[in-house]
């Protein structure tokens, strides 16, 4: 477990910025103590300073997961967000997409969101903007990338993809083994 290097921090923050914009500030400066990012086995964990002390005293080889996993670095040093970060993305998300109850299930099985399943979308979403996907009952389901801007969404045909799937909570069941 070690702090992130300069390059790694940039990669992580750039990726996070796509979803929550300048709200990253809120993740780091919290009223309830300092929180930090740590790298452990190529994965980035987000944890409080207090927890860090506890985790530091566990031997490295037997430490499985300190705090919340945000994502992992691929072998080519790109950062990939995982669904476990959803708890921290959802409250700060700038652009949101709501899916209809009928296509909720389809999204949870790892499919893209189609126009027909689109319930609501934040105004002024640009193309390829990171978005957090909610159910109509405001339960966060996952996140992805807008395939079309809000304007285009209006006139596109019902079977066109509007949000590319990146992660969804169905992964907790589908691939529990690769979460950490």
């Amino acid at each position, binding site marked *: 477990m070690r702090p992130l290097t300069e390059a790694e921090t940039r990669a992580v923050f750039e990726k996070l910025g796509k979803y929550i914009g300048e709200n990253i500030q809120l993740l780091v400066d919290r009223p309830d103590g300092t929180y930090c990012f740590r790298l452990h086995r190529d994965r980035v964990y987000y944890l409080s300073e207090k927890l860090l002390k*506890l985790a530091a*005293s*566990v031997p490295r080889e037997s430490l*499985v*997961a*300190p*705090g919340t996993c945000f994502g992992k670095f691929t072998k080519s040093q790109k950062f990939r967000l995982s669904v476990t970060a959803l708890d921290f993305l959802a409250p700060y998300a700038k652009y949101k997409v709501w899916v209809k109850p009928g296509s909720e299930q389809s999204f949870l099985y790892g499919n893209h969101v189609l126009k027909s399943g689109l319930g609501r979308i934040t105004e002024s979403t640009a193309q390829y903007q990171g978005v957090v996907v909610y159910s109509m009952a405001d339960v966060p389901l996952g996140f992805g990338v807008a395939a079309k801007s809000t304007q285009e969404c209006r006139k596109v045909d019902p079977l066109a993809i509007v949000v590319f799937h990146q992660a969804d*909570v169905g992964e907790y069941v589908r691939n529990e083994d690769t*979460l950490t």
Partner: protein
Amino acid sequence: MGRKLDPSRKEKRGPGRKARKQRGAEVELARFLPPGKCGLRRPAEKRAVKAAGQTARGRSGFSDGNSKWLAPARAKKTQPKGSHVELSSDGEVEEGWEMEEEEEDGSSEEMVDDYGASSSEEEEVGTSLAGDGESPCASSLAVGDSLTVFPPAEPPDLHVIHQRIQGNMEVLQDFGAKREEGRSRQEYLALLRRDMAAYYSYSDFLLTKLMDIFPLPELVNFLEANEVPRPVTIRTNTLKTRRRDLAQALINRGVNLDPLGKWSKTGLVIYDSTVPIGATPEYLAGHYMLQGASSLLPVMALAPQENERILDMCCAPGGKTSYIAQLMKNTGMILANDSSAERLRSVVGNLHRLGVTNAVVSNCDGRQFPKVLGGFDRVLLDAPCSGTGVISKDPAVKTNKDEKDILRCAHLQKELILSAIDSVNAASETGGYIVYCTCSIMVEENEWVVDYALKKRNVRLVATGLDFGKEGFTRFKDRRFHPSLKCTRRFYRHTHNMDGFFIAKFKKFSNAIPQLSWLLPLQKPLWFFSQCSSLLSDEEPAVEAAAPSAVPDTIIMEPPPKKKKLEGSKADKEQKLPQPALKKKLSVQAQRRPLKAVRPSPKMMRPKVPTRKKKHRVKANGQ
């Protein structure tokens, strides 16, 4: 809140585990079928009747034209051990029967005598019961007995067994009045045990243990309760939602549910559901956790406070850990540990799904614990156990556990409980508590372990804070436990409608580890060892032989003999040496041993740890 279970509405069953044919279904069936029919349905009995009616063939209903090709079949039939030839179409059932029978076969000799001969318990039970159930079966049995050709092909008639169990129970309730003359209670009990083992398909060992724990009428309730699956229960994750909202959301999905009970503010019982309850969007979003009612209790007993440091020693699959986090409102720190990396995957998944942010997951052996990390405010030890409390979840337990398994569990549990106690900081302002729980109902894994911990460490038992459950045993057979074991709680399926469970809560009142008087001899001089060796030179083999079966005794036994045993094993090797030489050797030993015990202590910073380990080794040797 939810819709109540409507018995008139048919419960839907998917093609899951329950829908498949289960072992023991024939038991249910036998209860409903009329006795005569059920007797004659069995191939073996058909065979018996056929064999008996061979002279009067015309009666059996085929013409003489068939006799030509029927004759060789008959010849085949008379071969000894030809029982598999005419396996009927329901071969699977047949196999099941035979397996059960083989189980019983060890004691089959007396059984046959009982069936066939003049005076037996079964007979007198038959007379005490209504005669109609008894007569056809008894006659068929008699026929089967006269047939010596197929001795093992006689399946036990479950209907008869069931009746005999009931009859014998009745007799044993009022033994003086109802018993048959000349029969001792032991005989009745042995027969009853055999019958129950056959009827509920338990191993003889486990049933003996259960008979020790429960009085007879309760035992039957317990065994019956183990055959019924329990409804699924879930726990609301109050970090993310409220129980009312969750219940509403689930009802909208077509789930039939109810609050769990007055004692729980977060539990819900699921009666039936049109959707898989482990894959609803609410589940995936972490609004609830599938968790048995009984596993809420240890956490409630632990009563974690906000901003504490808590250790969950055996955390997989993370249900209790997340409940702790929920009670602490995600403050403080939790160290979730488990020794199996495989099972930790689900812990990590569950903790992330439920939004637990104050947990560190580690993969250490629980026994290393005070060394890895100590000074916790509270420790939850949900020890690995034989699982005799959750037989309905895993019926394999019925047959695959024996004395050794249970003692192995108990040994591990003792090691774990000591490290759990050592990891707690007694000086903690809010805490200093340890909760020990198992999903076993064996006394060896529960009261003995607790009693052992009370002897070894500065802890005392405190009330668990649960207002139901049965008190733990303070005396069991020839064992006497500490009277404070009344504070522990046992939960059973048949009385509390949750899985069998045991919970004990300790308060640690001093961080010092009591130096047991029998460890002092480590520093003692020559005379002690010479005494031991002289004592043991003739005693040793007997102790060795008794060791495996008498392990529980070593727990209660005053420590000095154990010490002697250990030294004795060394002394034994040197027995051939002449006496003075032995003395010299022992004196060397006596000098060496204290050195060993003392040497590591300055290095380790925690002087108590090595001595504790030493103690374990002593015990391991003893066992």
